[in-house]
């Protein structure tokens, strides 16, 4: 099956070069010149694409806004962000807006293609998992938190996280996690009960340099709390350790 990729890039030369290369790889592509057009295609016209390559500096709505609006509208297309801004703050801002991967310009063609392949692969895996739902034994096996592997399902306090499909079922609802959210949650769960520092999260989970503004992490925690906590202002599972970082508890304290 031919994969369809939407390229959102206002620089005509780059758009043409990307299109040529992606088509040479056997993908079908379409170019949108600005964010409004991309949002219109994806949200209004409900056009089917397998991947979105999104530039940040666009006329009108910028890439961050486009990504955020897509995610807000519950559109979970794999999203690769491309930008000339390579500062750690910008990278984090991109992920916060809902990007799945981030590449700064100028990029290496082969790396771009590899990242696109890996994002598409993940989409295929999660589709395969939806059609062949994980069997009960897989859930049972994954109960021990230290051996949490990439596609495992983890259950705690009546909630279930499936790291293969990036789905989180809690309080009778199913949430789709972005890759960044899932990675953060996995790291916290793998270290259940232990304190994980903000610096550790930046370096080990997201591979970012430590001089990044660590408050960006807080926004992710706020979002995760909305998913799993009954009352996000009184967290039971995702606890803040003041001045250091965070701690994940499978069972609320005092209930042991």
């Amino acid at each position: 099956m031919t994969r369809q990729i939407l390229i959102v890039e206002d620089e005509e030369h780059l758009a043409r070069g990307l299109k040529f290369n992606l088509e040479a790889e056997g993908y079908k592509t379409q170019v949108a010149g600005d964010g409004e057009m991309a949002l219109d295609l994806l949200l209004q016209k409900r056009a089917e694409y397998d991947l979105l390559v999104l530039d940040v500096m666009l006329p009108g709505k910028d890439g961050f806004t486009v990504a955020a609006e897509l995610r807000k509208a519950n559109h979970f297309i794999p999203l690769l962000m491309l930008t000339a801004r390579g500062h750690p703050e910008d990278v984090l801002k991109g992920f916060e807006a809902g990007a799945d991967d981030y590449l700064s310009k100028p990029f290496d063609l082969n790396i771009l293609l590899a990242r696109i392949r890996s994002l598409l692969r993940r989409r295929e895996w999660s589709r395969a998992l939806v059609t062949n739902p994980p069997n009960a034994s897989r859930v049972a096996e994954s109960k021990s938190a230290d051996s949490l592997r990439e596609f495992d399902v983890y259950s705690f306090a009546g909630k279930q996280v499936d790291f293969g499909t990036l789905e989180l079922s809690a309080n009778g609802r199913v949430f789709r996690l972005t890759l960044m959210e899932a990675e953060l949650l996995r790291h916290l769960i793998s270290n259940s009960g232990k304190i994980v520092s903000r610096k550790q999260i930046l370096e080990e989970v997201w591979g970012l340099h430590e001089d990044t503004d660590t408050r960006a992490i807080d926004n992710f925690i706020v979002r995760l709390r909305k998913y799993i906590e009954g009352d996000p202002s009184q967290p039971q599972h995702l606890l803040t350790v003041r001045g250091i970082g965070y701690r994940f508890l499978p069972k609320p304290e005092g209930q042991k």
Partner: protein
Amino acid sequence: MRITSRKKTIAFAVTLGVLVAAVALVLNISWIVLNWREVVPLILGVIFFGFIIAGVILNTIFLVREVRRNEQQDSFLNAVTHELKTPITSIRLYLETLQQREVGEAQRREFYQVMLEDTHRLMGTVEQVLRAARVVQKNAALNKSEIDMGPLVQDAVELARTRHHLPSDAIAWDLDGKTAERICVAGDREELSAVLSNVLDNAVKYSPKDAHIRVEVITPDLKRVQIKVQDNGIGIPGGELKRVFKRFYRVLTPGSTQVKGSGLGLFIVRAITRRHGGEAYVESEGTGKGTTVTIELPRYQQ
């Protein structure tokens, strides 16, 4: 995030300045009250406190200005980074494509053309930055010669048309009905071309897709030549008209933030025009009502 922290810095500096000035004022008044009988210490004291208060106010003003300037410099760096990285990214992408893939002959030629255009764009950005640095050097020499403004303006218009892929009626131009007459200026051809291309680029950039730009060369009297470039673009709010000539300054209105720019264009325009003994003006009825830029130069007399 950065902008809000700047605003906080400014608010803090202003508050501190006002507080210190107020304390100095209170001290001054107490001095007057305590020493009102003795004339010499009274006068000396009032002068002394006056100096302190003036100093505090000046200091605050400079501090706030410095913070603002930093902010503009930041946005300039961002813009230039983008302007430099985009063509480099494109050239690299095409080179890697040519290196790794089988590309047909026609396609290959097209790629070469794209890369050439990118190098021109890169060169344009580099020249703009270098020119902005050069025009502030007082002793940099102008390579002056006698220039007929008619053909110079015509060339600039043609260049802008091709560069922005505009239809021929997008830029109308008028030579004050005196096509035969030579309207000459003593100036540096390259620098004056840069002035015209900057003004025309702005007119195109800040106009809607169907731009209507009018270029006029006028001779109001025997001593002056005026080049007027009028567009139907997004215009400039009244309060910003004076600032647009400042280095790195960019008007922040909803329409203008979508346009990419370094904040150097009009700075270069005014600096070069002044070095030629002329002046640059900008007029606009307000947001959405178009802009007129006027370049006035002394006319060269034989």
